[in-house]
């Protein structure tokens, strides 16, 4: 380039610095957005890579269904490229704070997956722990507080229960971040409501149950030389994984053998003990039997003795009785004799009495004779006494009487003697009898006494005998009882033995049943937080591939207009140069230099700013969802920067060359004449008088002008519609994303809880439980299903799917709707329904077949009856009949889906906690919490919307401003003229502004249509594999797009107003350039 030309070029830039700047800004924006967005994803990856390297995050992780041992570590250490192997402990525990149970994942502090200390210090002893920052804030705890953690005892290999921790009371000494949990999701737990709330770190020294490791983490040699998630890294790790795969089976078997051996030892011990016990028991029984037999014999002897005694007693008593009887007889005889004697005596006595009475009567006669005699005597005596002398007679009488008296007295005496004699005799006789009687009485009494005595003795004896008999009876009963007891004991013992034997057998069976442990050899892709982060970097990447295109296109258009205008403005100069003999290249080089300078400076500035800001902005947005590093690693990515610069140079310089060459084709003479202003032309509309005539003057002018500058008008429309389209895409994307959750969890899945039943449940238990559950007041409806995971295969494509088989039908808990017809679909007997996104990824349509590979690697070919609507994950729906026929397996319910009656969240919490306590349930997952997790994930896409709107705004602004400026500069003369004519500022503005209003309206209308399609395109581009974005744009989003575009145009138009105001009438009227 000649010096003069170079000078001219530099001056040109100085003079037209606004134009230069506008091209520079376009280059800045184009390259900035391109490079910045493109670099965001690698920067994000770099950041996580660095973080993972700093925290020494594992490359490979091994989990086993039966735990891992020191030997496993040793064996793995031997594998090539395994640098270090760490056995760690991870277990869920419960912490009670304010009466609520918090589920925490307890992690040991290791040299791998190091926690990043945020506050406080690392634990120094087993009484200390680290918690998450949110744990403190959300539970009103602070460093220095203590928490109590409850962890279920574990069973060691010997089958004994072991306390998991040495120390359950932990003092919080700091907060830390785990590189294993970079997202908010802490995973699921079998405790509490089924979700882990926090993780805490404890020193390894606090672990009591150290025998079995829960996890093995492996650091692969030199893995730090690769960037995580890159293909190279993945491939390298894959080789090591494959090596581990090779010892997997052997280690699994070894683990099983170890367990079997230990169990067998245990079994042997148990068996031995059983046998000893058996022997002991047998001896005891035998002893007892002996005792019983002895007892029986004793009883028998006793009985015999008693019998003998009884007999003897009987005889003795009989004799005694006889004697008594004899004695009685004797006495009786005596009595009789006596009685006879008495009778005899009595007769005698009666005779005697009679005699006596006779005697008595004689006596009385005598007595009376005496008395008479006496009386006569007395008379005599009286006379004597009186001294009278007695007459002889009287004397005689006296002597007579005296004699008589004497005689009488003698007889009397005799009589009395006789009487007395008789009386005495009687008396004597009576006495004798009496005596005899007495004797007899005495004998009788004696006998009686004897008898009584005998009886007494007899009674005594017999009662003794009776008692003895009773005793014997008792003894017998005792023996019987003893026998019964013995029998019972024997039975019990037998039962026990039987039981023990059964148990032993069971245990033996269990030993046989010791499941084959399964190793899961996982890499970082098994960490959900990591995966979702990497996926996010990929969606950023996807977006970064679409958006810069828009900017490049716009940059190209803008520079094309600007440069064309510039070349047009300088046609005189070009003509002059051409006339002076400069060749085409020399002339063009000025413009190329101009454009190159603008694009290179703008581009380099753009990439610097882009690299420095966009990744940081995107990081800030994503950091809401991830707990990782606070700052993104910003890299100057030459690759993207260079590519962006080259692309923008092609766009800008290319369009410059194009417009310059176009101009250069004219002859110098033509060029030196001012370019004829664009001719005015009648527009088509004027030929439709009934419309044209209705327009007022300014409207006509506006319409004419619009048709006059077709290129610019087109570009304005493209710019505005692009802006509207981008904004609409942004909002549409948000609508689509937001619709996923209600679509999936209200329309497709209409259940509230997914209750997973324990595998080992008996069919009957299961049915009882389900019946019970269906009666629960909190449940409105439930269905039984069988769910299993599988891989759907079509040609090269494979997708993980969940197979769902309803026991009866889905009722309305899962709604299957055909994706095309939107009609309800029922499951066919020999065809499946496949969800929409899976079908797309596999590339199949309804009516085609796919292969299902089950968990045992069996493959089945199935035909698809319908592709059904679905928005999250992939599912295959199959009828029970088909399942049973296809897999030759019996259908068994393993998952119950329930729909709650309307429950508040707290009520549902309670209900879920209650359910978790049921022994039949292994886990419960809640749609509401699933939704929450997904909602958080989907929020990340919200930020993309913000970026979109921001980008759209900048785009709209740049395009409109630039085009308006070109418009104004092209029409300065015209504008100056109307100013001179006395148009007020706002009238001048309206003269131009009406055009932009109309163009804005057209642009918006087109933009809405464009946006509608762009939205679907973008949705297709950034859709995550597991998700199906719904193709919806809410009316309000259209309104937003319109309003925001209008707002941007208003801003641009306000600046236009001031530009117009500044137009200098004089300068522009002077002459034609």
């Amino acid at each position, binding site marked *: 380039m000649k010096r003069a030309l170079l000078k001219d070029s530099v001056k040109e830039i100085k003079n037209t610095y606004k134009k230069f700047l506008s091209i520079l800004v376009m280059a800045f924006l184009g390259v900035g957005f391109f490079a910045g967005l493109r670099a965001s994803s690698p920067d994000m990856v770099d950041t996580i890579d660095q973080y993972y390297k700093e925290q020494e995050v594992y490359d490979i992780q091994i989990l086993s269904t039966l735990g891992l041992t020191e030997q496993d570590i040793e064996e793995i250490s031997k594998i090539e490229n395994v640098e270090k192997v760490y056995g760690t402990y991870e277990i869920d525990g419960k912490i009670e704070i304010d009466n609520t149970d918090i589920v925490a994942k307890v992690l040991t502090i290791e040299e791998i997956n190091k926690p990043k200390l945020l506050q406080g210090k690392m634990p120094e002893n087993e009484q200390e722990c680290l918690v998450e920052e949110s744990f403190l804030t959300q539970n009103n705890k602070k460093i220095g507080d203590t928490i109590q953690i409850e962890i279920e005892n574990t069973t060691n290999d010997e089958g004994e229960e072991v306390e998991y921790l040495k120390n359950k009371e932990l003092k919080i000494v700091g907060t830390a971040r785990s590189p294993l949990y970079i997202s908010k999701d802490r995973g699921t737990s079998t405790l509490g409501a089924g979700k882990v709330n926090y993780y805490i770190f404890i020193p390894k020294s606090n672990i009591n149950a150290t025998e079995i490791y829960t996890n093995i983490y492996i650091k692969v040699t030199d893995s730090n030389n690769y960037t995580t998630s890159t293909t190279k890294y993945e491939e390298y790790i894959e080789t090591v994984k494959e090596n581990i795969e090779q010892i997997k089976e052997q280690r699994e078997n070894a683990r099983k053998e170890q367990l079997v051996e230990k169990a067998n030892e245990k079994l042997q011990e148990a068996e031995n003990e059983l046998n000893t016990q058996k022997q002991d028991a047998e001896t005891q029984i035998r002893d007892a039997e002996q005792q019983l037999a002895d007892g029986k014999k004793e009883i028998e002897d006793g009985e015999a003795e008693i019998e003998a005694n009884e007999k003897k007693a009987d005889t003795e008593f009989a004799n005694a009785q006889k004697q008594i009887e004899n004695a009685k007889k004797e006495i009786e005889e005596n009595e009789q004799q006596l009685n006879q004697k008495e009778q005899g005596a009595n007769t005698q006595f009666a005779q005697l009495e009679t005699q006596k009475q006779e005697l008595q009567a004689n006596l009385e006669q005598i007595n009376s004779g005496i008395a008479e005699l006496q009386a006569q005597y007395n008379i005599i005596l009286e006379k004597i006494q009186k001294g009278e002398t007695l007459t002889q007679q009287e004397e005689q009488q006296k002597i007579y009487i005296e004699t008589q008296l004497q005689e009488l007295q003698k007889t009397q005496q005799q009589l009395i003697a006789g009487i007395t004699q008789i009386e005495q005799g009687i008396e004597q006789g009576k006495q004798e009898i009496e005596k005899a009687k007495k004797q007899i009485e005495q004998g009788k009494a004696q006998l009686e006494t004897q008898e009584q005595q005998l009886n007494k003795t007899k009674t005594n004896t017999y009662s003794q005998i009776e008692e003895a008999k009773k005793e014997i009876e008792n003894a017998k009963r005792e023996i019987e009882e003893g026998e019964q007891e013995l029998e019972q004991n024997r039975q019990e013992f037998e039962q026990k033995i039987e039981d023990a034997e059964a148990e032993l057998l069971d245990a033996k069976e269990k030993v046989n049943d010791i499941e084959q442990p399964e190793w899961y050899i996982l890499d970082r892709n098994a960490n959900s937080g990591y995966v979702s982060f990497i996926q996010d970097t990929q969606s950023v990447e996807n977006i970064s591939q679409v958006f810069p295109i828009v900017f490049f296109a716009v940059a190209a258009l803008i520079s094309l207009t600007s440069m064309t205008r510039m070349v047009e403005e300088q046609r005189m100069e070009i003509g002059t140069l051409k006339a002076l003999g400069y060749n085409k290249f020399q002339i063009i080089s000025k413009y190329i230099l101009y454009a190159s300078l603008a694009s290179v400076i703008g581009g380099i500035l753009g990439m610097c700013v882009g690299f420095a800001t966009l990744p940081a902005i995107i990081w800030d947005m994503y950091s809401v969802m991830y707990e990782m590093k606070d700052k993104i690693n910003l890299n100057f990515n030459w690759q993207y920067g260079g590519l962006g610069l080259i692309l923008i140079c092609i766009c800008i310089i290319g369009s410059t060359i194009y417009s310059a060459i176009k101009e250069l084709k004219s002859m110098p003479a033509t060029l030196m004449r001012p370019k004829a202003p664009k001719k*005015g032309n009648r527009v088509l509309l004027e030929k439709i008088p009934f419309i044209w005539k209705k327009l007022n003057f300014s409207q006509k002018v506006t319409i004419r002008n619009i048709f006059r500058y077709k290129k610019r008008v087109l570009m304005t429309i493209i710019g505005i519609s692009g802006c509207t389209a981008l904004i609409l895409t942004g909002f549409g994307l948000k609508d689509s994303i937001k619709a996923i959750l209600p679509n999936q969890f209200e329309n497709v899945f209409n259940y509230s809880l997914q209750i997973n039943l324990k595998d080992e449940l008996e069919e009957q238990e299961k049915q009882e439980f389900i019946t019970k559950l269906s009666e629960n007041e909190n449940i409105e409806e439930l269905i039984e299903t069988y769910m299993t995971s599988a891989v759907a295969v079509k040609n090269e494509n494979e997708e993980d799917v969940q197979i769902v088989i309803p026991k009866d039908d889905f009722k309305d808990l899962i709604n299957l709707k055909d994706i095309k017809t939107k009609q309800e679909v029922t499951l066919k007997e020999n065809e499946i329904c496949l969800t929409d996104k899976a079908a797309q990824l596999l590339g199949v349509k309804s009516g085609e077949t796919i292969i299902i590979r089950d968990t045992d690697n069996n493959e089945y070919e199935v035909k698809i009856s319908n592709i059904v609507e679905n928005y999250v994950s992939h599912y295959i729906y199959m009828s029970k009949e088909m399942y049973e026929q296809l897999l030759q397996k019996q259908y068994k319910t393993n998952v119950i889906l329930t729909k709650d009656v309307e429950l508040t969240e707290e009520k549902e919490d309670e209900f879920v906690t209650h359910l978790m306590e049921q022994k039949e349930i292994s886990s419960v997952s809640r749609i509401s919490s699933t939704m929450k997790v997904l909602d958080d994930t989907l929020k990340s896409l919200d930020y993309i919307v913000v970026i979109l709107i921001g980008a759209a705004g900048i785009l709209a602004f740049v395009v409109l401003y630039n085009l308006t400026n070109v418009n104004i500069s092209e029409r300065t003369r015209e504008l100056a003229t109307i100013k*001179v004519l006395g148009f*007020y500022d706002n009238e001048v503005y309206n003269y131009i502004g009406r055009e932009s209003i109309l163009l804005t309206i057209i642009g918006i209308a087109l933009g809405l249509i464009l946006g509608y399609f762009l939205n679907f395109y973008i949705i297709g581009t950034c859709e995550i594999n597991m998700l199906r974005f719904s193709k919806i744009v809410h009316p309000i989003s259209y309104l937003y797009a319109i309003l925001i575009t209008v707002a941007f145009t208003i801003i641009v138009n306000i600046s236009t107003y001031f530009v117009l105001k500044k137009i200098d009438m004089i300068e522009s009227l002077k002459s034609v350039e």
Partner: protein
Amino acid sequence: MSYIEFKNVCKEYKMGEITIKALANASFSIEKGELVVIVGPSGAGKTTALNILGGMDVATSGEVIVDGKRVTKLTNKELIRYRREDIGFVFQFYNLVQNLTAKENVELATQICKNALEPEEVIEKVGLKDRKNNFPSQLSGGEQQRIAIARAIAKNPKLLLCDEPTGALDYKTGKQILKLLQDMARKENMTVIIITHNTALAPMADKVIHFKNGKAEKIEINEKVIPIEQIEW
């Protein structure tokens, strides 16, 4: 006092550090209905004076009074109104709006004026009745300038300012235009000011103002006005 008083007007432009005096104490006065020709070499300040008079530029100092209105004291908005109501301007390069037909170009002016004339009549007056629906590109230079004049006078202005109206025209056409302007002044009693570097035109004017070095060096009053047809140059 005259209809137009241009008193001690100075105009300075600052071009970086250099101050250029476009007008240095220029003074003149014009009576109503006069046809004035301002002559002088390039850079003498003719156009600047005209611009200030037409309200398109503001004087640095001095006073301009038009029909009793102090133009130099007007605000920006009042200046626009002044241009709108009182001034008709004819440019060297016609400055027709290319996108509007002849009639529409006239309407562009009349639609913003209160007591504007009927566009069709004005066009008839400038003798282009048949071409009123043509676009500027379909008209010759003279025809375009006629339309430009029609546009200026259709506003019924107090002052008709013409900056080199024939500068871009050939002799014959230029003459026709000047004739039109002279007729306007004569017949409509309009005050017309024409800038030209062609001193030969002086005889057609009522007053000739000679500009030199930013000053109205000489003001001649032409007692005997010669119709333009008789002037040859």
